[in-house]
């Protein structure tokens, strides 16, 4: 990276969020607050009440006669105007923005009614007469995986010598784990305004999209638009996403079709019923895992047979849930012999895609659950078993190609043990058990990948097929930094923050780079693909901001800082290398009195180009791109799936009430190493948010469908996302082993606890019940009680 003079070290401080003032005063500008184009009409979507049905007819005549109706579009219109959405692998069923002939999940769009307001649109939507012929739904992912028409992909991978490991094992275990689908439940649902421009055959769409911007290409291709004719704009504020809002792209296509056909701008704001039924959920996974252990507890080999349920269609970036963790098949352990059978299957559920942790929670539950079950069989304490197997030497190349650049997993584990007062917990457990109480301790050790390699999803293809396509790799981001004539600093990023506080961290980074105060840095986070420096990898996912988002900002700031030093050297008759940027000034190193203000330098660059050093461009701005290091295209079946990998060690203590089956968390300790923390306050917020998300998956939340495909969790009285009062206190600590790979040494940390918490809580309840079989998630009182009282 360019040399930058850090003068005040804003990075690393717990600077409170600049974003909060507007949000806490109710002055946020969310998708439904912005009126970007006059005269937008309102859409209501007619949705399938059936999980699987043939559409025999759609009669819109009654709806068209309703008050205020502009028009109605159906799946036929969508099919006429669009191509199917592309995904990383071929799918047995083409995926369009609306059902074409057949509906495949409850809530799937069938028609769109556009009217002068939402009330009238909903009134008319109820008058669209759709005749369905119900078909048998497939709700069982294992059955689906055995059905060639529902199996999307199957690949087998082998690293090391799995068969040899199992032959020499003293203990082999086989268990099946199911991770149910769940969701992120953002406060703000999806929102779209689409404005088709018939004069230019172009679309401008506003949507609370979060990236990845690969989906911009998917959307443009589906709409038959060259990329430049799809201008996608995100609003300033987001009511959360947690991955879920990546799926809004499908609705951008749908509402765009309505705008195009009806000749008006169209707004659609998703309501909570629509959101629960038909936005996006995580891929449910069923995993049979086999472990081969030596008698001393060494994990010799793993065989993983995993099936992901992607729901009714393969929605990009699926089938990435399966491959996101591919660089970490070994988890945090030294095991070198691993076999993986990876299958992707379709059922009649809502399509899956990003949800915080994306593949991680599903990946770690079987591995960490296996470790807990093995510890019982081996008679070794689970923390000790983890300790004997953790990766110890860095950098560590995993069997499947992942690179663990740095860390000290044992130090984290030791800290967790100390913080949890582990021996005392074990003693309490002994005493509680002597009284007949159900008291358990759970441990989870997970590696948290960040900054995904754009190429990892290509593992879904075998190497020969993959070789025929353009290689894919890396993860790049762009940013623009501008200094105005009066010295104001503006930074534009395309990291589409969803509440993480990117603007605050960008201001800290720029303040250090240019020797100013963070408050002086105005950070724009609305992203406009028609104006801003985005890349195919832009967006808010895989905890990529602190690495590549910051990388692009730092590079742009470096360019502008270099120019400031060049101008200052000219003014102060010194060398650029001798110029220090600090306190809103440029001064000569060792001679603070010889200085010129930032404002004056900015004024020169804008007002007086003749006064600049000969040959220097006027203006003070830079658009820069930064690509994460260490990310190559897949090599055979090896992939560095992520740039960085943090580490999380959790120890949780629970007590299960024998009478009600309720598991109560008595203590929860989580120790992280996410490299250098750019803002510890925001880091802790991410840990707590991920904890709440993981706690929900472990204890309460699941997207539940009946065998007939009807959605059981269709309102918030049945979908039990935990509220603040339900979430136990988390005691966390951070070790900071700087990343040698990212520009400021940070590793992503937005998803780690979502990955670790379901495993740790599972293992604690398993221990409380002293069980030799996995416990089904979520760990609700009725489910646990049924296990105690079979």
């Amino acid at each position: 990276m360019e040399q930058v003079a850090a003068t005040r070290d804003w990075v690393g401080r717990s600077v409170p969020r600049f974003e909060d003032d507007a949000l806490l005063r109710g002055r946020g500008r969310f998708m439904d607050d912005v009126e970007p184009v006059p005269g937008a009409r309102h859409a209501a979507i007619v949705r399938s009440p059936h999980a699987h049905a043939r559409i025999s007819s759609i009669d819109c005549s009654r709806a068209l006669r309703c008050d205020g109706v502009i028009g109605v579009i159906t799946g036929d219109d969508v099919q006429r105007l669009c191509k199917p959405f592309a995904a990383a692998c071929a799918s047995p069923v083409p995926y369009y923005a609306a059902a074409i002939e057949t509906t495949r999940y409850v809530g799937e769009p069938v028609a769109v009614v556009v009217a002068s307001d939402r009330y009238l649109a909903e009134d008319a939507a109820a008058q669209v007469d759709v005749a369905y012929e119900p078909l048998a739904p497939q709700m069982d992912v294992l059955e689906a995986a055995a059905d060639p028409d529902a199996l999307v992909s199957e690949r087998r991978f082998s690293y090391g010598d799995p068969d040899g490991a199992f032959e020499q094992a003293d203990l082999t275990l086989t268990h099946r784990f199911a991770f149910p689908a769940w969701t992120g439940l953002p406060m703000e649902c999806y929102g779209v305004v689409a404005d088709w421009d018939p004069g230019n055959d172009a679309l401008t769409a506003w949507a609370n999209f979060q990236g990845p911007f690969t989906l911009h290409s998917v959307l443009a291709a589906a709409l038959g638009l060259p990329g430049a004719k799809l201008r996608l704009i995100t609003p300033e504020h987001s009511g959360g996403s947690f991955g879920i809002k990546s799926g809004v792209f499908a609705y951008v296509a749908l509402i765009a079709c309505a705008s195009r056909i009806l000749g008006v701008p169209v707004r659609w704001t998703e309501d909570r019923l629509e959101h629960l039924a038909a936005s996006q959920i995580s891929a449910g996974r069923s995993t049979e895992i086999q472990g081969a252990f030596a008698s001393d507890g060494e994990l010799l080999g793993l065989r993983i047979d995993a099936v992901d349920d992607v729901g009714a269609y393969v929605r990009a970036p699926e089938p990435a849930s399966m491959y996101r963790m591919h660089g970490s098949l070994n988890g945090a352990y030294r095991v070198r012999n691993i076999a993986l059978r990876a299958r992707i299957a379709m059922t009649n559920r809502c399509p899956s895609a990003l949800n915080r942790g994306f593949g991680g929670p599903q990946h770690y539950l079987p591995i960490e659950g296996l470790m807990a079950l093995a510890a019982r069989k081996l008679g070794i304490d689970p923390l000790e078993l983890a300790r004997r197997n953790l990766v110890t030497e860095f950098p560590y190349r995993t069997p499947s190609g992942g690179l663990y650049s740095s860390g000290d997993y044992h130090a984290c584990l030791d800290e967790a043990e100390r913080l949890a007062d582990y021996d005392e917990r074990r003693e309490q457990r002994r005493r509680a058990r002597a009284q007949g109480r159900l008291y358990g301790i759970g441990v989870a050790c997970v590696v948290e990948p960040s900054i995904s390699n754009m190429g990892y999803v290509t593992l879904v293809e075998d190497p020969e097929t993959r070789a025929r396509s353009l290689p894919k790799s890396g993860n790049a981001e762009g940013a623009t930094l501008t200094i105005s004539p009066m010295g104001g600093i503006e930074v534009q990023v395309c990291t589409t923050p969803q509440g993480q506080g990117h603007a605050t961290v960008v201001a800290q980074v720029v303040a250090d780079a240019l020797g100013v105060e963070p408050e002086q840095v105005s950070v724009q986070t609305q992203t406009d693909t028609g104006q801003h420096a985005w890349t195919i990898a832009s967006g808010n996912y895989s905890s990529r901001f602190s690495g590549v988002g910051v990388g692009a900002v730092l590079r742009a700031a470096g360019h502008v800082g270099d120019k400031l030093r060049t101008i200052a050297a000219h003014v102060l008759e010194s060398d650029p290398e001798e110029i220090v940027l600090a306190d809103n000034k440029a001064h000569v190193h060792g001679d603070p009195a010889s200085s010129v203000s930032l404002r004056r330098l900015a004024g020169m660059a804008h007002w007086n180009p003749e006064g600049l050093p000969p040959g220097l461009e006027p203006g003070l701005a830079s658009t820069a791109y930064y690509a994460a290091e260490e990310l190559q295209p897949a090599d055979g079946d090896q992939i560095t799936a992520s740039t960085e990998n943090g580490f999380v060690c959790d120890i949780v203590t629970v007590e299960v009430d024998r009478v009600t089956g309720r598991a109560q968390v008595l203590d929860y300790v989580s120790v992280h190493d996410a490299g250098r923390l750019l803002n510890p306050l925001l880091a802790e917020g991410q840990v707590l948010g991920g904890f709440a998300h993981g706690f929900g998956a472990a204890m309460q939340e699941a997207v539940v469908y009946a065998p007939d495909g009807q959605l059981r969790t269709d309102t918030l009285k049945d979908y039990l996302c935990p509220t603040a009062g339900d979430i136990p206190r988390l005691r966390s600590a951070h070790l900071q082993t700087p990343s040698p790979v990212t520009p400021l040494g940070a590793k992503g940390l937005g998803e780690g606890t979502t990955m670790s918490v379901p495993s740790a809580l599972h293992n604690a309840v398993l221990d409380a019940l002293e069980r030799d079989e996995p416990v089904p998630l979520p760990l609700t009182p009725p489910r646990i009680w049924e296990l105690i009282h079979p």
Partner: protein
Amino acid sequence: MKPAPLAYRRAESVEHAVALLGEHGDDVRVLAGGQSLMPLLNMRRLTPSMLLDITRVPGLDRVDGPEVGALVTQFALGEQPGLDDAIGECLPYTGHYATRHRGTIGGSIAFGEPRGELPLVLLTLGGTASVRSVGGEREIAAEDLYTGAYTTTVKTDELLVSTRWPQARPGEGRAFTELAQRHGDFTLACACAAVTVDRGEIVEARIGVGAVADRPLLVDGAARALIGTPAAGAGAQDAIAAAADATTRGIDAYDDHHASARYRRHLAGALVADAARRALDRARRA
């Protein structure tokens, strides 16, 4: 999530309200607090042709001894001095702090949510509801109020104007308890007990359970297990265990994706034991 078209009328008085009900009653929904009704209207799960707003009807927001006006909010009732133990224990479980400021006692009783706490307590305490129509006023015993989930014997031309919650007599103790998966949610099961002790013996008992069936239930078998037993010591403990057992064995419950019928019956029994134990403690001190 917008309501279907409906007529909106605001009643100025009880007489006005019952006149409107007399005229339009078949397809009218009464808006008292709206904390259940409005979401159902927004979701179009209810599509009445008229919404009759009684929120500004004067005189219905008073508490007078055991008599609670229909528009008394759940929050306001909870603030009453000398509040009954069972009511006091059930109100914090009734929705959330925010919804209790709008949710009304009359609304909760008239709505007939089978998992509702207030209908169970009214039933267990042997309360009544007063309803008025153009033709006059009548009282409905809580035992005769519910015919199924969300259905009551209040006629379409009648307005529930108040409920009566009999106060505890000397020697009577009461308690309420429940278990929800998430605080403020619909409960997995709830239980209410009212126990009267005289000269060291349980002489009267009423035991109710909620959220296991389509309406709150009185469990006579559980009450019988308690009556005539000692109010303290091993005899009382055995009686409480027998009451719990009678509950688990004696009630039908339903299955859903949250819990099995078997779990609900067991939980109801466990909650009955807890409520009966605490009611008995209070009765001995009363």
